[in-house]
């Protein structure tokens, strides 16, 4: 039983990170119907930029841990968001009218480009965040020591998800984003500047990815130019499990994926962990073809 609970918390922590990356994925997908394979690399870029800024600015020393990290996070989010906007302008906008899969190929190209730029700029070696930036406190829950950071990570995902959800559901810009997602032409007829909306989306999505990158860097310490591919794929799975395009779905999908991974690994086999995760994904989709929270509007003939 203790093992079960321990593995459950492990899964929740990993799931929190998947969820965070999946949020950005889903956001972009929701509006553009684009599987942004470069999203994972934007996440890596966030991790590397975070490292550079952390080392060069010394913010943590100057204004304390909490303020320093928050400021750092905002800066990274801003920078990665801008890269996201540029990415959309250069690689996706010219393909907006083309077949959807053309944009997917462009995204794959961008992903290769980003990963290899990181390698050329930062080198192929693993880079390491300074140790002991985050306080190493642990909380006692049911007799188990759970690192505070893990709880904070999960909390951060949850807060960002809620904020994003409220933004998209309750604000005027959010409604415009949803409208643009349904029918860009009709949105234009409402006086919505669709290009601006897409830029906003391509700022927020990558910024969230960047935030996840710096969190992973700070918490796990070790980063590498290729890590975005694996995380990006996991986030994509998470988004699909929840129903791609759906914001709470991304959160739910991330958590489910994390938990399935750690429980599946713990009770079946670690070597088969990813296969188990994929199998669960396939079963979920066979039962619910558009994900758990995905819209199930049968096509009206």
């Amino acid at each position: 039983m203790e093992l079960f609970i321990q593995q459950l918390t492990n899964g929740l922590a990993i799931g929190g990170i998947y969820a965070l990356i999946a949020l950005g994925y889903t956001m972009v997908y929701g509006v553009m119907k684009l599987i942004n394979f470069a999203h994972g690399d934007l996440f890596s870029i966030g991790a590397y930029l975070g490292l550079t800024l952390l080392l060069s600015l010394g913010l943590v020393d100057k204004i304390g841990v909490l303020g320093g990290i928050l400021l750092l996070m905002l800066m990274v989010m801003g920078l990665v968001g801008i890269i996201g906007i540029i990415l959309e302008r250069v690689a996706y906008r010219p393909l907006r009218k083309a077949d959807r899969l053309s944009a997917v190929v462009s995204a794959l190209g961008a992903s290769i480009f980003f990963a290899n730029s990181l390698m050329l700029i930062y080198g192929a070696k693993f880079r390491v965040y300074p140790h002991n930036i985050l306080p190493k406190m642990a909380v006692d829950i049911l007799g188990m020591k759970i690192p505070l950071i893990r709880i904070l990570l999960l909390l951060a995902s949850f807060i960002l998800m809620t904020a994003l959800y409220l933004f998209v559901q309750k604000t005027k810009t959010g409604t415009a984003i949803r409208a643009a997602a349904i029918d860009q032409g009709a949105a234009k007829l409402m006086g919505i500047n669709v290009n601006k909306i897409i830029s906003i989306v391509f700022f927020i999505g990558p910024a969230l990815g960047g935030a996840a990158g710096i969190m992973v860097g700070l918490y796990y310490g070790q980063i590498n130019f290729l890590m975005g591919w694996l995380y990006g794929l996991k986030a994509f799975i998470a988004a699909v499990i929840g129903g791609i395009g759906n914001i709470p779905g991304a959160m739910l999908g991330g958590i489910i994926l994390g938990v399935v991974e750690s429980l599946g690994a713990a009770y079946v086999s670690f070597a088969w962990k990813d296969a188990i995760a994929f199998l669960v994904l396939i079963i979920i989709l066979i039962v619910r073809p558009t994900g758990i929270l995905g819209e199930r509007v049968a096509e009206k003939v």
Partner: protein
Amino acid sequence: KTIKIGLLCPLTGSWASEGQDMEKIVTLLADELNAKGGLLGSEVEIVVEDDGGDPRTAALAAQRLSAQDIVGVIGTYGSSVTEATQAIFDEAKIIQIANGSTAIRLTEKGLKYFFRTSPRDDEQGRVAANYLTGKGFKRIAILHDNTTYAKGLADETKSLLEKKGANIVFYDALTPGERDYSAILTNLKAANPDVVFFTGYYPEAGLLLRQKKEMGWNVPFIGGDATNNPDLVKIAGKDAAEGFMFLSPPVPQDLDSKEAKDFLAAYKKKYGDLPGSVWAVLSGDGFLALTTAIKATKSTDSDVLADYLHNKLKDMPGLTGKISFDSKGDRVGDLYRIYKVDANGNFVLQ
């Protein structure tokens, strides 16, 4: 006319860091050699090809090298990648000296022109099993990462340990490239081993140590030779890495030999830091062995060179100790040492 020596290494892909170090080391040694007048009166030229860390690309790169009139090839890293190139070099009658390829079967095929400066999995497995039982560990957990190398070593060690009657309480693989290994650590802990033998690579080892520390679990961790990389301590942090032990061929830093000291000084001077892993350094040994053979035989004929390397090259002073090859092309000698990480994060020879 120059004497061309090929270097096959992963400059892109997941093993790019190893390949880039290999390139640095071999070009450094070649420059030194040329500064001293080259080989047989001509300059040595290094022809570098990227294998991307992938068998198919490697096979192409090997074809490309074979077509370039080279005397021999150094490399490459990774057993399955090396294996994809073996037949090509063998058919072209080109000497190949691999560095980071430990799978047993590579030298069991009876290939005449194939050598390696790295030890084999069974060798390390034997050392590991002896060490683990010698220290009196009863309940042993073995963790690998499902790569050719780590799985090979884990299997080898497991069967030897079982023969010695040890109790393997955990045997499974993690997925390399991830960041969070708390799930597997939780299960490991539940298996309650006396020691954990991890046969994978340093990035995961670093994270395992770090997260183990976070869990507040104190069990001795022992690594295979792929954990021999100073970045391990950077990733784990000094306090988490302290006490970690691993098996490895000696790195130049540990050798008193003049060759090793000179090499380190030159490397530091040229590139500003020290080579990352011992595997890249082994490519330097391959280069030294090949050029020594050319010098000694005054020939670039593959058969002559192969014969020399198999039979006549004895205890050549290399960067990682003395080098000789046996009839299969394997490196001879007891290579493995035990290292321990001290409180300052230094690797201390036991």
